[in-house]
């Protein structure tokens, strides 16, 4: 009896193996979406792709982009490319494209009229190198958000602040109530990102562009940026008691009311959602820290390495089309907490915070982000500087600003 069952099971596996390659193509997709909210979002992409009759082989790499990108790049340069891979569009994959390792998607883009559907236009521009399109943007992520825990402010007997300046004033009262005023994880990119947000919010869009786009070192050493460093100093004092590393652990401090707020990109929203919190009731979000309501059009995009396998190349096209499909866009971005890349989709079910973001986007108040403006090398130097700055209370503002200006002077 048992023997028969085993034979049947064995036969079934063999049959399945036969059916596999004929019906569907396996396409490995690597990404670094591993936190709760992110994993839920990426499952939507996989579901949509599997529905086309192909098979999404999930290649999640834990430990945020900094850890994942070197692995992805060495696989591509080492001759073992995956079917598709996530990058932040902008300059991260620039050299891979120049070395001819990535697939040119211009034909598909013209056929499907990407230039008409993708909004804002700057997204597609970041995917374009020498007039050819190399990536599919899937979402818009902006860094410039302040997430506040309503519960924490209630406990301290304070109203929820309207902007960064009010928030800084509340810090002593929060501390007295045993609440960490500002949660900030120890990963270097968090420190450097928070500084950029403070620059865009307290200094304004022009200041930001002058430093990061024009790379004006003299300006970076000047009084405008000194003010930004003053704000960063406030943040440093407020964050000094956070003993966590990962961004989602820091977000969790805000979710549980142990910390009052966090400067973090809109991907933090997915975490609030997974925890079952409601925007406006349990937590408050302030785009641009409530000071400068502009959002950056950074985000995630998928790049397709050049493959020899014919079937897989075809599957790449299907995946590219799936990613921009209106239905996928809605399902994915709702879970991810990011904004869709097309303007013609219906986001009725979006929550408070996403609606705020969509409204800003509709007004056209957008700006580029550091991923698009700076090379990875410069980004890393910035990360080193700011992780030191935020961890070392005795580092003076003058010293930090001088080193910042040096980095900008040699930036590319």
């Amino acid at each position: 009896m048992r023997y028969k069952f085993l034979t049947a099971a064995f036969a079934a596996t063999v049959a399945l193996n036969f059916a596999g390659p004929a019906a569907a193509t396996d396409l490995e997709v690597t990404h670094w979406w591993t936190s709760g909210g992110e994993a839920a979002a990426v499952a939507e992409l996989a579901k949509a792709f599997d529905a086309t009759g192909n098979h999404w082989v999930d290649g999640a790499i834990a430990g945020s982009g900094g850890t994942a990108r070197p692995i992805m790049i060495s696989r591509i340069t080492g001759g073992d490319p995956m079917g598709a891979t996530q990058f932040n569009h902008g300059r991260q994959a620039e050299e891979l494209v120049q070395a001819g390792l990535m697939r040119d998607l211009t034909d598909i883009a013209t056929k499907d009229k990407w230039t008409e559907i993708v909004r804002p236009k700057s997204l597609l521009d970041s995917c374009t190198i020498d007039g050819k399109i190399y990536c599919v943007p899937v979402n818009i992520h902006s860094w410039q958000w302040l997430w506040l825990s309503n519960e924490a402010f209630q406990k301290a007997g304070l109203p929820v602040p309207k902007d960064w300046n009010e928030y800084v004033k509340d810090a002593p009262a929060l501390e007295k109530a045993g609440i960490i005023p500002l949660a900030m994880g120890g990963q270097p990119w968090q420190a450097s990102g928070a500084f950029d947000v403070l620059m865009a919010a307290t200094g304004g869009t022009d200041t930001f562009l002058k430093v990061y786009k024009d790379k004006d070192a003299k300006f970076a050493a000047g009084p405008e940026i000194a003010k930004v460093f003053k704000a960063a100093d406030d943040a440093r004092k407020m964050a000094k008691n956070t003993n966590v590393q990962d961004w989602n652990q820091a977000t969790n401090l805000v979710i549980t009311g142990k910390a009052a707020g966090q400067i973090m990109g809109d991907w933090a929203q997915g975490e609030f959602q997974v925890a079952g919190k409601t925007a406006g009731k349990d937590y408050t979000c302030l785009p641009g820290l409530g000071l400068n309501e502009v959002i950056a059009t950074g985000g995630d995009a998928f790049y397709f390495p050049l493959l020899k396998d014919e079937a897989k190349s075809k599957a790449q096209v299907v995946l590219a089309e799936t990613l921009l499909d209106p239905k996928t866009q809605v399902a994915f971005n709702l879970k991810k907490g990011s904004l869709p890349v097309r303007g013609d989709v219906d986001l009725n079910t979006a929550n408070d915070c996403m609606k705020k973001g969509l409204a800003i986007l509709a007004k056209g108040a957008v700006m580029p982000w550091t991923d698009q403006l700076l090379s990875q090398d410069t980004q890393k130097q910035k990360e080193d500087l700011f992780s030191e700055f935020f961890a070392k209370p005795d580092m003076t503002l003058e010293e930090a600003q001088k080193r910042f200006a040096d980095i900008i002077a040699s930036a590319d």
Partner: protein
Amino acid sequence: MSSSKRPSKLFRNLNAKVASVPMILTALVVFVGGTAWTVLYSFTNSKLLPRLNFVGLDQYHRLWSTSRWLVSIENLLIYGAISLVFSLIIGFLLAALLDQKIRFEDTFRTIFLYPFALSFIVTGLVWQWLLNPDFGVQRVVRDLGWTSFSFDPLYNSSIVIYGISIAALWQGTGLVMCLMLAGLRGIDEDIWKAARVDGIPMWKTYLFIVIPMMRPVFITTLVIIAAGIVKVYDLVVAQTSGGPGIASEVPAKYVYDYMFFAQNLGQGFAASTMMLLSVVIVIVPWAYLEFGGKKRG
């Protein structure tokens, strides 16, 4: 010409020579070739992919003006001094104590050597928990009643490198102890007897007779410890990932971060060349002293 002409020197021991060809090739291509390639490209401005676009000493100039690199070097020196001195002293003391013909010697030896069986990653994680103020040593002591007790080396920029050294010592001393014990066992019983007859106290026998006789063992140990110091990377990653801030960065981590995270191969190569150079500066004079003067076999 006689028919019994001596075969050419080249063909003597032919089998042995053929057998060593793969190793020679590996050494030449992988070690020497790879090193030469790295040094060559450290003079270029290679970013994500290696390119032969020479920029002279620019990468080195930038390297030595980067505060993170300077912090890394300083940390390596502190870490190196601590692990060298303490693992030798503690290792030797443990070995000398075990050598007193005590009971359960095997058990103690196993206990002391056990940490060495763990990788640096596991060691790092264990010590990260032990030194974490919220659930490690500090918490235990506070729960016992000393509420003002504070011990959080990994969260304090100025002493974090010592926190890392503790873990390294815990892991590495066992091996040093074993090497030393082997050395001690190699000392002839008669020497001990002679010393006793002459009425030399035990500590003096160790210091002036036994230790000088153990010179080869000390040199082997020194090389093993020194190699471990220069390449320290995973312990730091597991314990602090370089934090708080950049306070516990080490050179090997700088190399990795700049090669892969920052996509700047040139900078990473320059840093690794500097690491190689520091090893060479230490090794060459020593090798000269050790093997230079006298010809052997």
